[in-house]
């Protein structure tokens, strides 16, 4: 009759073990409060994310020139002294009152002259100059003259008036920095399929690169004014979300308005007798005016920050221009935003974005490479599939 004996703990363990193996009482529904107390996951990754984003921005800003202009730098010598191509000797001399001096950056020489006088070209020797260009009056100052086979005054004395024909121009290489632009939409929610639609506005700026061969300098360039309405352009997005991923179709515009001065590398010298009266650059004011409309497909990943009820993320996409503009390229995106729940199916989001292009928009005439970037704000609705 006795099933258990004193100290027969194993029997008791077996029995209790069996009895409690299927013990499944009704449990309380504490899930919401439990999840509210759970700290945002992956705290350990926050710092790497911030660091990597910073590193990414830095690397983008310092992208080298080479990917943007394949042939120019390699096929043409960067600086070709003009006199080697067009010796300044035996230049026909025409007018008596003016001479034109072509500026090749560090080497200045008389190139050509025409007119009834038809004197032989005069070699002026090579007198090296540096110049300082002031935006206000474009006055060119001859800063240094040396290595001349003859004194400048003597050279000028022998030169007959010149008329400018073809000015051979090239400037020293200069790589110049500048400014930017914006874009997309998103809001993620894990585990549910949802659809988003949003509109936004972006301000576009540029990182400008001017190649050595171009007769343009950054001092002469006026980049987009952030506050001018023409630099603010709309964007529209449609997306589908699952978990924290989003696939997004986007339409956005950006306007490329840039004013700049194209120097022809020459200065005109008016003089009476032996004295120089004025020296000024010869060039023209140019303007880029075009509106580029882009359509693209973007993939984005967001990271919810539950503690502060917001999210941040990054994405990338391929964009191509509509219409005649010949532009296509890869854009990246960093964003952060906040969700406002309207009801169990709809959610309103407001999102700040930083969009940047990995490819330059090339100005066809002067080979000004401008990489657009945008700062923008977007808002829209998300609908969760029931």
């Amino acid at each position, binding site marked *: *009759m*006795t*099933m*258990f*004996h*004193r*100290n*027969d*703990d194993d029997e*008791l*363990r077996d*029995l*209790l*073990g*069996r*009895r*409690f*193996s299927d*013990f*499944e*009482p*009704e*449990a*309380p529904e*504490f*899930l919401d*409060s*439990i*999840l509210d*107390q*759970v*700290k*945002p*996951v*992956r705290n350990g990754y926050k710092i790497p994310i911030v660091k990597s984003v910073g590193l990414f921005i830095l690397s983008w800003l310092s992208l080298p020139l080479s990917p943007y202009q394949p042939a120019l730098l390699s096929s043409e010598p960067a600086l070709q002294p003009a006199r080697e191509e067009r010796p300044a000797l035996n230049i026909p001399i025409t007018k008596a009152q003016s001479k034109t001096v072509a500026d090749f950056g560090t080497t200045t020489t008389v190139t050509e002259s025409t007119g009834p006088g038809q004197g032989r070209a005069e070699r002026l020797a090579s007198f090296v100059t540096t110049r300082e260009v002031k935006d206000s009056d474009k006055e060119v100052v001859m800063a240094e003259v040396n290595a001349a086979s003859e004194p400048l005054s003597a050279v000028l004395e022998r030169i007959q008036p010149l008329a400018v024909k073809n000015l051979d121009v090239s400037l020293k290489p200069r790589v110049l920095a500048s400014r930017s632009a914006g874009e997309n939409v998103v809001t993620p929610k*894990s*585990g*549910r399929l949802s659809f988003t639609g949003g509109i936004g506005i972006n301000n576009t700026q540029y990182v400008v690169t001017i190649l050595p061969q171009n007769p343009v300098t950054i001092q002469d360039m006026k980049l987009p004014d952030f506050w001018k309405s023409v630099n603010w352009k709309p964007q529209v997005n449609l997306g589908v979300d699952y*978990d924290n991923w989003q696939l997004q179709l986007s339409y956005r515009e950006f306007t490329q308005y840039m004013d700049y001065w194209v120097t022809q590398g020459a200065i005109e010298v008016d003089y009476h007798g032996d004295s120089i009266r004025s020296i000024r650059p010869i060039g023209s004011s140019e303007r880029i005016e075009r509106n580029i409309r882009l359509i693209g497909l973007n993939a984005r990943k967001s990271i*919810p920050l*539950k503690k502060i009820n917001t999210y941040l993320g990054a994405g990338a996409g391929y964009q191509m221009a509509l219409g005649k503009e010949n532009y296509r390229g890869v854009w990246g995106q960093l964003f952060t935003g906040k969700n406002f729940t309207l009801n169990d199916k709809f959610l309103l989001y407001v999102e700040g974005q930083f969009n940047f292009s990995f490819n330059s928009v090339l100005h066809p005439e002067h080979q000004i490479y401008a990489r657009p970037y945008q700062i923008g704000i977007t808002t829209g609705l998300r609908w969760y599939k029931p």
Partner: protein
Amino acid sequence: MGSLTPQESQVLASLVPGCRNGDRRAQTQFYNLCKKRLFGICLRYAGTRSEADCIFQDAFVRIFAHMHELKDAEHVFAWAKTTVIRTAINYYHRELKASRELVSLDSAVHDTADDFHLGIVGQLEMESLVLLINELPAGYRMVLNLYLIDGYNHGEIAKMLNITEGSSRSQYARGKTALIKKLEQIGLKKDDYVPQKR
């Protein structure tokens, strides 16, 4: 005890990555799959239902917050069960130990309760059995649960409860005797007991 079927184990393991990433859907599924079994453990270790609720909630917070520390997703349920037990022990240390319910070995009274009564355990409704365990002093309850039901040995129990191994044995002996007394108190006598076929 409380073991899962292979299918359930697979499902739980598949939910681990989502839970680690804060995926609410995965967390909800995980909660729903485990809540009854884990709450059963909480009920055994707690003195009252409200204590069990408290331990249950704390345990799940710890499970979700520390799931990234779990190395083998296949063993997630065993890990969760251990987390619940440790949470209960922490609760005991925090809330109950001040009342000094554990008695030292020297002062332990070795009851000579009739083990015959223990057979009654096999016949009790689960709710009644849990109630009996709940009514035990916290120290006894801890040791009985750990030793008899969850399978820890006295060395492990001593470390968990921060007592000596001798104290663990003592508490176990006293707890077992107290449990038998409880059985008698609720009116179950030797004559009412029908032994189990084994």
